[in-house]
C-alpha cells in the first residue's frame, strides 16, 4: 500500500515550507505526501506530475504574494482543474480588497495570516480532510 493522497505546500520561502511541513505532518499525520513548490507555476507542475503517478492532491496550502503568479490566481486555476481540492491561503501580507474578492469567489476554503495559529490551522485542515474522506 502506497500513499495516494498529497498535500501541496506552495510558498516562495523555503523556511516557511519546511516549518509548515514539519508542523502539519506532526499534527495531521503521516498518511499523506507532503509535496512542496516554491511558485505557483511549480505547484501546477507538481499537481500534474502527481496525477500522473496516481497521487491525488486533496489540499493546497498557498502563499499569496509570490513571484510570478500570485496565490489567488494559482488557487483559482487549481480549483478549475480539480474542483474537489481544498484550498487554504496563508499570507503575511494581502490587500484587503483582494482578500474580499477571493473570499467571495469561492475558490478559498480558509485564509490564515502569517504567523498562523497552529492549532486552528491543524483543526481546519483536519476538518477539510474529513470532508474529502466523506465524499
Amino acid at each position, binding site marked *: *500500500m*502506497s*500513499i495516494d493522497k498529497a498535500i501541496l505546500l506552495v510558498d*516562495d*520561502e*523555503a*523556511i*516557511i*515550507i*519546511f*516549518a*509548515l*511541513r*514539519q*508542523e502539519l*505532518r*506532526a499534527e495531521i499525520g*503521516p*498518511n499523506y*505526501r*507532503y*509535496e*512542496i*513548490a*516554491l511558485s505557483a507555476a*511549480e505547484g501546477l507542475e*507538481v499537481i500534474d*506530475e502527481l496525477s500522473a503517478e496516481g497521487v491525488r492532491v486533496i489540499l493546497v496550502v498557498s502563499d499569496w*504574494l*509570490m*513571484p*510570478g503568479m500570485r496565490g489567488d490566481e494559482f488557487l483559482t486555476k487549481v480549483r478549475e482543474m480539480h474542483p474537489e481540492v481544498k484550498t487554504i491561503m*496563508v499570507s*503575511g*501580507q494581502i490587500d484587503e*480588497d483582494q482578500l474580499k474578492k477571493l473570499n467571495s469567489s469561492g475558490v478559498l476554503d480558509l485564509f490564515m*495570516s*502569517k*504567523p*498562523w495559529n*497552529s492549532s486552528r490551522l491543524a483543526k481546519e485542515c483536519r476538518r477539510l480532510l474529513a470532508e474529502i474522506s466523506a465524499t
Partner: protein
Amino acid sequence: MGKISKAKKNLHEQNDAIHDFVIRGPISLGDFDASVRGITELSCHLGGVQRTSVWSISEGEDISRCLDIFDSRLGIHSVDAGIPISVYSEYDAPHRRMEIVAVSDVRTDPRTRQLVDFFYTDRGIVALLDVPFKLADRQRGILHLEATDGPRNWGPDDEQLATVLATIITLAWQAAERRTAEETAKKGEEALRAIIDAAPYPIAINRVKDGTYLDANRTILNSFRLQERSQLNGKHPTDFLTVLSEGVQEELDTALAEGRPLDNFQWEYRKKNGERKYTMLSTRPVEYKGERAMVSVSVEITELKHAEEKLKILNERLEQKVSERTEELALTNLDLQSANVGLAKAIVELKETQEKALLSEKMASLGRLIAGIAHELNTPLAALAAVSRLELKNLGDGLDLIAKAASRLTDEEMAFIRRTRERCAKDRSRVFAAEPGAERAARREADAVLRKAGVIDPDIIAEDLVELGIADLAESAAPILSGEKRDDFLYVLRASIGSYRAALIADDAVMKAARVVSALRTYAHGGNDESISDIALAPEIRGLLELYYNHTKRGIEITIDIPENLKISGKREALNRVWFNLLSNAIHAVGEKGRIEIIAAEDEGVVRVSFADSGSGIPADIQGRIFEPFFTTKSAGEGTGLGLDIARRLARENGGNITFTSRPGRTVFTVTLPRGSDTGTGGNA
C-alpha cells in the same frame, strides 16, 4: 409943447419903444442877427441919426467885423467890410478902455482924424457916438450912432440912450448864446436819445424815490412788449419781471435807494411770459428832469449764463465722472486687493494641498513600505513560530524519553545520527535547498530502497526522511530501519535532526528578520536629521533592495553596479525616498519578468545614479507629463501620481535633478547629485 414935456414925451416914447423891442422883438427868439438889425433901426429912430452900425471885436483878432449897418435915409441894412484895428489904433484905444467915444466932428477930432479919408468921407459920416457893448466883462463890439447931416454935439441923453441900446445888444447876444446853447443841448439830447434808443442794451432811468421809470429806451420797451414810452409811466420794474436770484431784489432796492452805483451786477429774472433771463447790470446816479434817478444799462447774459451753467454741469459731470471713476478705481483696487488676498490664500491653500499631497505620497510610500516590511517580517516570524512550536513539542515529549530511546540504540546507530546532524551543520544550504523535483526523485528512490530492504511502511519512512532532508541517506539507514530498533532510531533521529533543522530554520528566520530591520534602519536613518551629509550609495541601494527582497524573487533580476567608495552629498531620508520611488516604478514597469539595473558613476563632481528597466517603455505621448503631479498610469488606489513629481523635487532640493530616456525595452531614469566631499578616499560607511 415945452421943451421938457417934449423931452418927457420923447423919453416915454423911447422907453416904450425899447420895452416893446426887448419884450416882443427878436431877442426873445434868440435871433441875434435880427436883434442887431432891430437895434440899428431903433438906434437911428431914437437917436435921430442917419446911420447906425454894429461892429464886433473878437479877442485876440486884429479885425473888427461889421455885423450890420442901417441907413435910415435909404431904409436899408448893409454890411461893411472888416477893418484891421491896427489901422485906427488911436481911435480904438478908448474903446478898449470901455469908454464912450463921442465925436462931434470926425474931421477935427484927433481920435478919428486918421480915419476920415480912409472911411468917413466915403460914407458921409460927420459925427459919431460909440458905445462898446460887453459880455461877461469883456468887450465884444461897438455900437456906432453916426450922423451925416453935419457935426453934432452929443448930450448926456444921447449917451444914455446909446448905452441902453448897447446893453440891449448885450442882452440879444446873451439870448442868442443861450439859444445856441439850448439848441446844442437839445441836439445833444436828441443824439443821446438816438444812441440810447439805438443801443441794443436795455437802458432805463428810474427814480431813486420809488424805483419807478422815468425813462427807458426802445430795447426795454420791446423787451416788455410796450409800444409807447408813456406806458412805463408810474411803473416799477417788478411790474414787468420777477427777480429770481435770491437776495437780488433787496440788493437792487437798497442800491437804488442809496443812489449807490452798481457795476456788472448779475441777476436772473423771469418775464411775464415766463422767459428766464440773465442780466448783467451797471447803474449810475443821475439827475433826470429834476429828479434823483439811477440810469441803468444791462447786458443780457442768458446765453453766457447758460453756457456757463452747461459748463458748470459739464464740469460737475466731469467731477462726478472723475469721482465715480475714482470710486470705481477704488473699488477695482479693493477688488484687486481682495483678489490678491484670495490669491495669497489660494497660494497658502495650494501650499497646504501640496504639503498634504507630499504627506499623502509620503504616506502612500510608507504604506507600500510597511506592506513590504510586514511581508518580509511575517515570513520569518511565521517560520520561527512554527519551529518553536515544534521544539516545544519535542521538549514536551520529554528529554528523558529521547534519552531512553537513545540508550537503546547501539553506538553505531547513534553514530549515524551524529554524522547526519554534522552533515546538516556543515552544509546549511542543503537544509534550505528546496528543490521539489529533486525531493520527489529522492522520495521515490528512498521509498524503493526501503521497500526493497523490507522496511515496513516504506512510503511513510521515506516521507520522514524527506521531511528531515535526508532522503538520500535511505540506503545507509535501511538496515537499521528494517530492524527492531526502527522506532527508537526514528524517534531519536527526528528529535535530533528535526530539532536541528528547526533551529537552523529559526536561525535563518532571525537573520532574515534582522536583515529587514537593519535595512529599515538604514532606510529610515536621518528621518530626524535632515541635514546634508555624505552618503555611501552602494549600501543604501542594497538596503533598499533588502526591503524589496520579495520582488527580486519574482522573475525580476536586479543588478547593482555601484563603486563601493562612491559617495553622494544630500539628505538621506529624502534621497531614500527618491531611490524607493524609482525602484518602485521600475518594478512596476517590468511587471512579472525582466531586468532592473542600478548603475552609479561619478563624472566631474556629479554622481549619476541610473535605474534602468526592461519594461515596455513610456509611451511618447505621455513622456512630457510623467513629472506632473497626480499623473499616473497605475490603476486607482495603486499610486498617487505624485511619486515622480516629489522624487524630482526632492532631487532638486538636494542640488540635483532627475531625467529620463525611454524606448520599449529600456527606460532609464537618471538622478544627478553632487558628489560627496570625501568620495574616493576609500572605504564605505
